[in-house]
């Protein structure tokens, strides 16, 4: 177990670059947040507006899926490097979760 961590002083240019990258990313995060709020508003409005359930239910489920994608890839940094294995397992969990949900709305009966 190599427990010593190599730390290195960044050059000013490197530091500035990293900082700029982080700040850019943060602006992206805020934009993501705005999008999430917007999606939520759409979902609530669609329900409050009393459209037919046949349209509303798939729509709001889709909106939820998009929001979760945003959370995962932006807020939880899943788009960054080194997330391959964790995301693979997370999707494994989602696949099984999906199977369970399908089962419970189809063959629980009555």
């Amino acid at each position, binding site marked *: *177990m*190599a*427990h010593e961590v190599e730390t290195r002083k960044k050059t000013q240019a490197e530091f500035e670059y990293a900082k700029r990258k982080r700040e850019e990313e943060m602006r992206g995060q805020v934009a993501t947040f705005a999008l999430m709020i917007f999606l939520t508003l759409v979902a609530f409005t669609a329900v409050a507006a009393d459209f037919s359930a046949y349209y509303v239910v798939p729509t709001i489920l889709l909106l939820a899926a998009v929001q979760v994608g945003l959370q995962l890839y932006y807020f939880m940094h899943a788009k960054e490097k080194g997330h391959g*294995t964790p995301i693979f*397992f997370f999707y*494994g*969990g989602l696949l*099984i979760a999906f*199977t*369970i949900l399908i*089962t*419970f709305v*189809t*063959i*629980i*009966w*009555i």
Partner: protein
Amino acid sequence: MSSTAQAQKKGFGATLWDYLTTVDHKKIAILYLVSGGFFFVVGGIEAMLIRIQLAVPANDFVSAGVYNQIMTMHGTTMIFLAAMPLLFAFMNAVVPLQIGARDVAFPFLNSLGFWLFFFGGVFLNLSWFLGGAPDAGWTSYASLAIASGGHGVDFYALGLQISGAGTLIAGINFLVTIINMRAPGMTYMRMPMFTWTTFIASALILFAFPPLTVGLFFLILDRMFFANFFAVEMGGNTIIWEHLFWIFGHPEVYILVLPAFGIFSEIFAIFSRKRLFGYSALVFATILIGFYGFMVWAHHMFTTGLGATANAIFAVATMAIAVPTGVKIFNWLLTIWGGNISFSTPMLYALGFIPSFVAGGVTGVMQAVAPLDYQLHDSYFIVAHFHYVIVGGVVLALLGGLHLYWPKMFGTMLSEKLGKITFALFFFGFHATFFIQHFLGLLGMPRRVYTFVGDQGWDLYNLISSVGAAFMALGVITLVINIIMTSVKNERVGNDPWEDGRTLEWAIPSPPPFYNFKQTPLVRGLDTYWIEKMEGNPEGMTYAEPIGDIHMPNNSIIPFIMSAGLFVAAFGALYFIDGDKAWPLPVLALGLLITLGSMAARSLKDDLGYHIHKEDLLKEGGQPGGH
């Protein structure tokens, strides 16, 4: 420190404290082995009581109620408290060594996982002394589990909840260990087969235990806290339990059998002196089996009435599992084909495994034929089938693995002679007990019956089955004698006692020093140690780093206290529903407080571990036996 000889020199108190606080994966392996072995014997005694009761028709050796408790506890104990912990023992003992790691990813959690399992198991078994054990079968189907009187089922739900949390922690720990802690050069496709199967089994644990957790919570909430998940008159639905249980329960079979496959893969390679045939096919077959394991659970529910479409889908999906399993069997056959087979004890178990498991596998396919399963389900045929899989697969692997890894874990060999006698008794007894049960099922005998009326064509077969069980018991007794005798003799062995070891664990002393590898090895291919040996490297390893300080984690008593807290809390929860006592709620609160408090203590106190200095490592030289 890690040698038993040295441990004996220490006082008993010091040794006990050492084991209560240890975070060393090798010692935790021994803890798993000892407690798993204990529960295996308990479950075995329960099995013997079952076979005594059923030896003759209309027997009154035990009463109906007691029989149901024994039968339930036999299944629950063997699956949760014997088979899994014993596999964890080998995983802990071997996997970090096989991947060239100094420890698991989370040593503290490793200890916590063990103590949770241990306290859960003890809690479950205390039911015998506190008003009766659970009696609704190990599957604990909801309507009966809700109707069952007394506290038996409460013990089941709470006990499994605690030990299940331990299992989940252990699963995550192995996953991270294998993902992050592999030595340089140890790519995924160079990992030994046992590591691979541990990896997949751990992934199954990660996804299969949450449904069980939820199901058990529902059961706890329904029985103890006024919920209505399974109360049909309140709108509940008992099929939910069946689904949740089998969404967990089917992968559980693979959680058990995949590591068993791993152990056999190691044995076949070592004792045929040949690399695994079709290694990559074996890996993909393992992954595929793991995946399918999640898609077939409803084949346990063909008779529930899910409808023809669901039954047909799950029938075909289940049959599909036979394909990767078949691939594995043929690859093992081709591994020994062209090899140089030594019939040592571990190899006998591996060779005994093939016909046994094939028999269990083909009856599995027969039961995948849904309409045929209507006849076989819940009869003695299914009892025969899953014992062929679990005993013929998992228990043979555990016994074979025990003989294989005993020298690595304890530094001394088990007697080959007694080992072969054990094998002969156990193997004969196993087939005598269970082969005949296929026919009992076909002749109409339902499972889980505490007695049967004579002259239905079952009397002789049941007697044969009971006699067979006695042989299995004799086999286990021989094993215990073997362990005691060889431990007393305690003849020390070197790094590679089987002489044909292929993977990294055989390149270091038996037992390994507490830091495992003085220098992290560089892995240059599949079967690293074999490669080095064949190239005449006397060290058995190429090193990836110079000798340097080694960082080690500190021992801690906190996992023990944390688990004990839940154990205390469980008593509070259990008696809460009675409503006639004042103490349950305070006890529940106290227990949770102990657990939360020790979690906070853990998080507030920095635990940075310590270093073994380079000079001390150099002083030790290459002496086997470690510290």
